[in-house]
């Protein structure tokens, strides 16, 4: 039986990684809700966030906060390009959703190859945003980076909630999610909304990647595991509100890291996938389907 200290420490780790999954989950939900598309290239945005931030940081010697902002904007721009060149042509021709979803998978592979050719296949990392740490609470160590993840996560979820509920553009995005034709009839440019959704979603993925890189590393291949875990978190959260996505992520993160303590690291994916199957079977609308609906 693991000790209380071990369990608490893994809880801390789980919350940290779970917040990251949560941000990725929100990215999935934003696109899914506006279009019905599951964007399997979501993980690639996470990878690009870390890679771009690292390149800007090391090549131009800019401070981390500035590198982070520039990297986020660049990745959001990649999201826009994906929408314009890959999604929209198919969307306009009324291609079946599964064809579009497969196209996003192709985008993931394509971008990974481009990254290998241009930035290389070596893993890379950069220091935590605040040096020093970890914060010691008795035997429990809390890395400073976790506070950044918590703070940025909280601010983003608050900002997104305000955006979706209080701004015309946010409401228009939700309207597209609920009834695309009715939205168009009221003058909402549905295709442009989809571009906004991709930019937002890519930006969120990038921020997740930028935040997690110091505690792990980034490399061309991290997109897939982050994408899958973010997707599971989105399902747990019911593809609903930003809060639901974040809670879904934290739930998954904690479950994973406690599973590692109990069963060993090899069980991490087994646990996540089992959780996915259980949720799909018993809570097809997500664990928080109830409040997720209110967006």
């Amino acid at each position: 039986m693991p000790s209380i200290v071990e369990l608490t420490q893994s809880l801390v780790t789980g919350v940290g990684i779970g917040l990251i999954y949560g941000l990725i989950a929100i990215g999935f939900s934003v696109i899914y809700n506006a279009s019905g598309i599951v964007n399997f290239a979501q993980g690639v945005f996470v990878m690009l966030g870390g890679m771009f931030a690292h390149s800007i940081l090391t090549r131009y010697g800019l401070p981390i906060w500035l590198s982070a902002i520039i990297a986020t904007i660049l990745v959001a721009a990649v999201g826009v390009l994906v929408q314009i060149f890959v999604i929209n042509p198919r969307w306009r021709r009324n291609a079946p959703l599964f064809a579009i979803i497969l196209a996003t998978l192709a985008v993931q592979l394509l971008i990974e190859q481009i990254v290998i050719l241009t930035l290389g296949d070596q893993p890379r990392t950069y220091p935590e945003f605040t040096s020093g740490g970890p914060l010691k609470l008795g035997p429990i160590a809390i890395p400073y980076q976790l506070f950044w993840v918590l703070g940025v996560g909280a601010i983003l979820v608050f900002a997104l909630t305000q955006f979706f509920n209080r701004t015309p553009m946010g409401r228009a995005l939700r309207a597209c999610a609920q009834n695309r034709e009715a939205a168009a009839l009221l003058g909402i440019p549905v295709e442009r909304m989809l571009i906004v959704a991709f930019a937002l979603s890519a930006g969120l993925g990038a921020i997740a990647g930028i935040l997690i890189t110091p505690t792990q590393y980034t490399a061309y291949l991290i997109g897939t595991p982050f994408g899958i875990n973010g997707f599971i978190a989105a399902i747990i959260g019911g593809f609903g509100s930003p809060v639901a996505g974040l809670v879904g992520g934290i739930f998954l993160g904690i479950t994973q890291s406690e599973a590692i303590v109990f069963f060993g690291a090899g069980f991490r994916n087994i646990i996540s996938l089992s959780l996915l199957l259980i949720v799909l079977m018993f809570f097809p609308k997500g664990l928080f389907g109830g409040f997720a609906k209110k967006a």
Partner: protein
Amino acid sequence: MAADTTNLLTVRDLAAHYGHIEALRPTSLNGGPGEFVTILGPNGAGKTTLLRAITRLIPSSGKVEFKGQDVTKFKTNELAGLGIIMVMEGRGLFSDMSVKENLQIGAYKLPGSQADKDRQLDKVFTLFPRLKERLTQTASSMSGGEQQMLAVGRALMADPKLLILDEPSLGLAPRVATEILSTLGSLNKEGLGILLVEQKAPLALKLAQRVYILSSGSVRAELPTHEIKSHHDLAKYYFA
């Protein structure tokens, strides 16, 4: 052919098909500014197809003009800015969103300040006071009649010049349907152009200045309403 500037809406030889099914054969019709035009036709006649082609929700051949401007190449979302708003068959509400949010989104294309939007909202509340009592309720939690009022109210938030409605009285108790159609009548008296599609609604006939009969994908007759003395007269056009 020269653009028709005397009409609000001009539809020329509009035709649409689903695969091999010719749901709408070349159809022409028009509506003047401030006119109340009703299109009657039995189930499956092609009424919804016609309205969806007019609002560019489905591809079609033929031509649609609004105030003399060819809008055939326009996207659906560009029509709202011109003043064309449609209340879809089945209402098309944002069902998980509140009454208030539905109305706010209705004003997406309403030009002007927040004060203008508030004034428009007050107008809608005057027409449908029940919406004001239900502001925070989700659209889906309301009765059918209230939902239809919301759908019409939401459309009015855009301050349209032409309001198109696809069977708004479908599934409603006669009393509620009458209430909604009468409201359309008073809006028309204030100058709003209305294109109303119904299967059978004596009131829709009474309110209209002109009626088209649509059956099996074609217009069978175009009549000023005073020529229709009773509902039974219509039957001969349906099956002509």
